């Protein structure tokens, strides 16, 4: 039986439930090991006048203190734009900017040293809002534009025009395992670094870069992460580089583990956006033109912000064909920690913007928003090209809308919501059905490549190594299944190994939902090459054994169920492991390196036209909420999710991505609010005050399903990526809240829609008057 399509448990599940799975901070302490931390700026913007570490150096147990001056290599780095200083030099640009690295024998010594370091900073005017950054023209990268059609003319001829501004807040990743790394010094300046990172190759390169080492001296190893969600794509490099610095300089193993409060305060998260829109439409609700100006808060350094903006812009159309469209994107620079990748990568902000616009159009016209959505939905045969020029092929959106509405009994429940709201004096209900069309591939073309190493051992067992990193999403389980099927063996005989730059070089981040696509593709390529060689041997062997009955024919050799046979004589079977032995004796290689590069991608990174995505993952969700009119507290009564995820490699794992993504998105749009003090210091820096969804927040009725669609032949095993898209379906919850409010107010709503936000809207107070 093939493995692909089966509901196999996560390959680490047993370890997880017994506590045996190891994370970075579970590694036993080595003799001599140092604990590392750093002194970070408490000032959001300032000029460093002096740094005095003498008192700290005198504290017993303190082994070393380093500033930027101690870096043997380059301090300046960055994934896209090289604008970031690992250790602050003359200026601090955000609260959390590392200034002095501290290495000590104990946490207590670190704590004392941190308090004993004296940094004199002259405070400068900070920038904390998108408006202030716009005014100061403080940007990261260049503004970009996507343009199609005759926007100005369409507005001139418009029957209806709406304009407005929509804002959404940031979000902390709240991975449970905070940033962590341990660096072990090796011989001749070599280092082995265990890092909780989505991107071992980037960590490796940055360490080499800041320490002035050739890349081959640095090996980065990632067993797994206790959650990442984009937060360990770039920002895992800082702790790893700092630990590596200490290991190199002191010759002692060095461990750094952020505590949760520090992690939340000093690392960036999802980008807040503030978007201005104008939309033209007919009295029937057909959108004729839209102009959207995106402004994001990038924080102090570029990190991935320009790329995140690109995805927001390419998702501003979402499921809807808008013939005339102009989308601009500008990343504003502020004195917050650099914002970075977060599941959805700008997509959620882009999609939420257009979904809000649709709700507004429906309110204006007094129509059901679903009618507006379906009317404007991308067509199957026409009206199916995105504003940036990529055709929407294999378009299942119309079907998803119809089926999701049916399964969720949308129309009947919408009527019931209206009836309820007329009668209830204590509560309000709202309902909404929204869609997602999420482009799969890195927007940056060259990143769409991967390599894999497959080794077959003499007992027939198999090891696979790729650049994919495991953060719970089950990529290793899926890769194991793919390789097992390629070799016709049981998935239990295939082990996916720890990720290491020693085995897989120059890899891309595990990100953009495409780790299984890319690394799975590479692993299949490697396994296929091994199978091809084994097929030769098998054909010869089986022919010889048939005593003249068969001629050797590779085309007839079958690998299945751990056995190999010639289909013309299926009775005579070789065990896979017997064939392995035979190959070995015949000196045929049983190891291979595979490679994969996504085909068909073209993207002009300046003009913003082309085909940046290999395909789209799509879905719809209908959600209903109940709001207490007196307290603003909100509950999700029911959500129905229907997706097109192609043919699932592992239904259990994919389902978990959908439920997990949806709930995470719900958190972003409802209760997760980052509140800051006037100084720019984050106040909500722990789960006491930063409220991610709890088990009680899961919709009371939660239906998750996907349609049968095996037509996605462009991807491995006809599957589709599923990591990020479901997060955007939580926009249905936010729209349902907006829908509820629209019964008693103008329906205006920003995100997150906290209980406070909801109550103040109910009380008809302008949000500006708060605080």
């Amino acid at each position, binding site marked *: 039986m093939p493995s692909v399509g089966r509901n196999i448990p996560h390959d680490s599940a047993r370890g997880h*439930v017994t*506590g045996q799975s190891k994370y970075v901070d579970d590694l036993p302490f080595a003799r001599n090991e140092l604990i590392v931390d750093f002194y970070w700026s408490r000032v959001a913007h300032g000029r460093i006048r002096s740094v005095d570490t003498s008192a700290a150096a005198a504290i017993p147990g303190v082994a070393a203190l380093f500033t930027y001056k101690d870096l043997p290599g380059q301090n300046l780095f960055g994934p896209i734009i090289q604008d970031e200083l690992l250790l602050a030099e003359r200026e601090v640009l955000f609260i959390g900017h590392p200034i002095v690295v501290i290495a000590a024998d104990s946490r207590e010594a670190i704590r004392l040293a941190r308090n004993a370091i004296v940094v004199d900073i002259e405070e400068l005017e900070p920038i904390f809002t998108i408006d202030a950054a716009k005014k100061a023209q403080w940007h990261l990268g260049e503004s970009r534009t996507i343009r199609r059609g005759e926007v100005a003319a369409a507005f001139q001829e418009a029957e209806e025009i709406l304009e407005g501004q929509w804002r959404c807040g940031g979000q902390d990743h709240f991975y449970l395992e905070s940033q962590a790394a341990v660096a072990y010094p090796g011989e001749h300046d070599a280092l082995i670094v265990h890092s909780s990172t989505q991107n071992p190759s980037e960590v490796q390169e940055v360490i080499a870069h800041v320490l002035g080492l050739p890349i081959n001296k640095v090996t980065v190893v990632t067993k797994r992460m206790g959650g990442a969600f984009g937060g360990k794509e770039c920002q895992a490099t800082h702790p790893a580089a700092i630990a590596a610095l200490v290991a190199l300089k002191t010759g002692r193993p060095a461990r750094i583990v952020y505590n949760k409060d520090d992690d939340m305060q000093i690392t960036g998260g999802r980008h807040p956006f503030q978007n201005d829109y104008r939309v033209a439409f007919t009295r029937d609700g057909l959108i004729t033109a839209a102009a959207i100006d995106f402004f994001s808060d990038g924080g102090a350094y570029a990190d991935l912000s320009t790329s995140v903006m690109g995805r927001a812009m390419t998702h501003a159309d979402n499921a809807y064909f808008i013939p005339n469209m102009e989308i601009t994107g500008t990343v504003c620079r502020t004195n917050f920690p650099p914002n970075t990748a977060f599941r959805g990568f700008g997509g959620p902000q882009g999609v939420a913007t257009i979904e809000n616009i649709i709700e507004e159009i429906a309110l204006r016209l007094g129509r059901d928003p679903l009618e507006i959505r379906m009317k404007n939905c991308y067509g199957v045969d026409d009206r199916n090209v995105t504003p940036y020029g990529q055709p929407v092929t294999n378009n299942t959106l119309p079907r998803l809308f119809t089926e999701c509405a049916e399964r969720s009994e949308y129309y009947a429940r919408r009527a019931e919501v209206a009836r309820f709201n007329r*009668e209830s004096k204590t509560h309000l209900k709202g309902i909404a059905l929204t869609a997602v069309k999420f482009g799969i591939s890195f927007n940056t073309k060259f990143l769409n490549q991967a390599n894999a190493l497959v080794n077959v051992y003499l007992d027939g067992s198999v090891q696979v190594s790729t650049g994919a990193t495991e953060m719970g999403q089950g990529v290793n389980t899926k890769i194991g299944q793919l390789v097992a099927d390629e070799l016709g063996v049981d998935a239990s005989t295939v082990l996916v190994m720890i990720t290491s730059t020693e085995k897989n070089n120059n890899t891309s981040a595990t990100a953009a939902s495409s780790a299984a696509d890319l690394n799975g593709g590479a692993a299949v390529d490697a396994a296929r090459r091994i199978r091809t060689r084994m097929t030769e041997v098998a054909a010869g062997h089986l022919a010889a054994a048939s005593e003249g009955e068969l001629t050797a024919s590779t085309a007839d050799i079958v690998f299945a169920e751990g056995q190999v046979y010639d289909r013309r004589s299926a009775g005579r079977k070789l065990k896979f492991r017997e064939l392995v032995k035979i190959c070995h004796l015949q000196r045929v290689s049983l190891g291979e390196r595979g490679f994969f590069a996504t085909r068909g991608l073209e993207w002009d990174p300046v003009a913003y036209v082309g085909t940046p995505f290999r395909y789209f993952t799509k879905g719809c969700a209908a959600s209903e909420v109940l709001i207490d009119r007196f307290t603003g507290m909100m509950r999700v009564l029911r959500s129905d999710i229907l997706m097109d995820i192609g043919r699932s490699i592992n239904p259990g794992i994919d389902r*978990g991505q959908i439920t*997990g993504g949806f709930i995470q998105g719900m958190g972003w749009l409802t209760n997760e609010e980052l509140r800051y003090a006037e100084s720019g210091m984050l106040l909500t820096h722990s789960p006491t005050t930063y409220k991610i969804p709890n088990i009680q927040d*899961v919709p009371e009725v939660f239906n*998750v399903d996907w349609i049968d669609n095996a037509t996605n032949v462009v991807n491995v095993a006809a599957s589709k990526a599923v990591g990020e898209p479901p997060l955007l379906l939580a926009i249905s919850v936010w729209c349902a809240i907006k829908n509820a409010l629209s019964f008693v107010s103008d329906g205006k709503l920003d995100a997150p829609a906290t209980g406070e936000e909801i*109550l103040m809207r109910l009380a008809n107070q302008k949000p500006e008057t708060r605080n």
Partner: protein
Amino acid sequence: MRNQALLFINGKEHRVAGAEAFDTLSNYLRYTLGQTGTKIVCEEGDCGACTVLVGRPDSSGKELTYRAVNSCIQIVGQLDGTSVVTVEGLAPPRELNAVQQAMVSCHGAQCGYCTPGFVVAMSALFETRDRLSEQEVRDGLTGNLCRCTGYEPIIKAALAVDGSRMMRARDLYPSAPMLETIGAHCRDSLTIEHGERTLSAPVTMEQAIGIRSERAPVIILQGGTDLGVQANKRGLRPPLLMSLNGIKGLDEVRIDAEMLSVGGTATLAALETAIRLHAGSVFSPAHGHLAELANILGIFGSPQIRNAGTLAGNIANGSPIADTLPFLFVMEARLELTGRSGTRVVPINAFYRGYKQLDLEPDEIITRILVPLPPSGSEETLGLYKVSRRKDLDISSFTAAIRLQTTARTITAASVALGGVGPVVLRMPSVEALLKGQTITQDLFERAGQLARREINPISDVRGSRDFRLQLAENIFRKFYYERLEPRREMREA
């Protein structure tokens, strides 16, 4: 006198003295014993990743009863006389218990970092039951956060567990031999010293008062759900700590027709259980009031917090957003305080003198909380409210209690207490006066809300703005009216 705490960890006896006794249990497990299955995330009781089972002798003294607690806010010395079971000890090596099995097959773990905590918390639920309803699963796992799964697979896993095939902690680790050792060892009071710090655990009230009066200021460390957080997050290191857990009988909860009486070391979970087991007449106002309290306890922290935290601790911590206070205020609860010069009883309404300023002498201990219950046949309505950003496992932004005594539809007495709107929980005499003697109408409660709004002066903080709190104070009277008093019963969904 002993200077070593005794505890069992996964059945193995540990004696702990010195610095380690003051370390958190989670640190001790991970960094001293190298048992890294227990995870540390928030170090403040708010995520559940560090959940372990703690077994204490039940009322018969013959069995250990296991409950889930947060090991990050418990110090090792506090666990003297207990049996701790961690994720590593839930099943024999290479085996899985029924919960672990279900979590594997239902994809209840993704990144796995929350998983040990979930598995332990879920196993705790099956210590006493064979099957759980979905609501029981949700209520039982409120103390554990997961960022990956969206919880749905975890709920599925819990529903799939057949508890009759469950390897339970109390079966895996036979109570009798452990209880024998504990009984022999913990007969004497405990005093652990390390550097400047001392932890004592007396076994009689006399000893306790002796310690508290001789060596003031001695800080009572009970559940540690407030003190443990302050230690981890604000570096609080009180030199003298005393746990009252060794004093037998102080944890008693009693309910009779006139009185709810809660001992000084009774946990919130014990209080909740006592209310649920109490067999009063369902039609009596006392029953209604206790049910109302049970609802508030149901959204107090998490199971882990309620298993450790005490009512006395909630009162003594003195926070203006302590969830039990509005109830205690409007019920005119009395506190029995025991100190060097004996026992005195103080009305709770006179106990708070200012922000965290209590009418409690340094040598005094809250030994009992007395809540008079309304007589049967009286006409009473009580509404208790907690508004927080997230309904569950959250600290309140605003709390309220409204209690009315009525004849027909005339209000004969009214008590109102609001929390989160000032430095202490506030009684609202002017609002009470407004309500008293009036006939119940919608307009009356509109006016009561507006008056309450004018009377308070809340601040803006991380849990809500001033305007939000003003609006809530006004609205809560409307809510009370529509949900409790409106003659034509309003369609209610909440």
